[in-house]
């Protein structure tokens, strides 16, 4: 349905673009309607009046044609640009009854949520990739500098692996953690020298 609508709009935009361009060129005197004999006598007859416009109507016609050309080009651009990439999915199960899939983004959110539960983690951002035979998780976390970072990252690895394997049912083959300590707030003042 969406493809059909898109095709209709592209066709309409092309018709508007060609017609407005023909009228514009005819009004400017660049194109003689007789040169468009291939388009058929009906189209040529419609163009002839634009060769005899007075100054006011000529300006109005030129402005209208330019507006229509811009609008048609805009519509063509919007309709012909590539659409958003579909969500990447991973198959959790496939059997005679059908397939069970989950979007990779949801697995990432589950990992983010679990990482956020680990004491000492202030924020987390994960990246999940499928790496047969399982999943690979790269997690970047901001941590509280008061705690032990090695202990925290060990716990984070274990919890991420256990949680994702439990919820998703696929083996997690690798968990890498990139821990960052947020910069200390500084209270420096610039001294003004007289």
């Amino acid at each position, binding site marked *: *349905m*969406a493809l059909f609508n898109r095709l209709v709009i592209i066709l309409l935009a092309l018709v508007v673009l060609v017609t407005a361009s023909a009228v514009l060129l005819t009004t400017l005197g660049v194109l003689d309607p007789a040169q468009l004999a291939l388009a058929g006598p009906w189209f040529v007859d419609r163009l002839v009046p634009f060769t005899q416009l007075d100054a006011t109507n000529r300006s109005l016609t030129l402005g209208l044609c330019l507006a229509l050309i811009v609008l048609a080009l805009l519509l063509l651009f919007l309709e012909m640009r590539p*659409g*958003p*990439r*579909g*969500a990447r*999915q991973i198959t*959790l*199960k496939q059997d005679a*009854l*059908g*397939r*069970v*899939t*989950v*979007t990779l983004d*949801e697995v990432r*959110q*589950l990992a983010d*949520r679990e990482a956020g539960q680990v004491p000492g983690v202030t924020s987390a951002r994960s990246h999940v990739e499928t790496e047969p035979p399982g999943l690979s998780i790269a997690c970047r976390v901001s941590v509280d500098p008061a705690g032990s970072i090695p202990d925290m990252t060990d716990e984070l690895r274990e919890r991420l692996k256990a949680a994702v394997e*439990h*919820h*998703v*049912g696929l083996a997690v083959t690798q968990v890498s953690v990139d821990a960052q300590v947020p910069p200390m707030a500084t209270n420096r003042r610039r001294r003004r020298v007289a």
Partner: protein
Amino acid sequence: MGSSDAPGSEVELAQAIATAVRAVPGVADLSPGRFVEVATYGARARVRGVMVRQTAESLDVEVHVCAQYAGALVLTELAALVRESIRQSVRASGAGTVSQTDVVFDDVRVE
């Protein structure tokens, strides 16, 4: 959504499936799809999140689900419950038996 489509039509069946799937514990809602709308279309109704393809030989169903997050959530187990609810719903509506049921988890909701 109305029920003005013919009884036994794909839309009627999709509505029955949607109701059954929403009632499954652990399902927060149906998802209309993430980038492309997933729905069954009728003359006056549209059921989002359920796609029913009925042919003379087979009946295929695809449902897009938002799961409810819980510590005990296991997506494959939830998918099995969803499949079973679809199977029972289709059987109750007298539309035959389901050949293929695809379950897509589009979202996991946390309250």
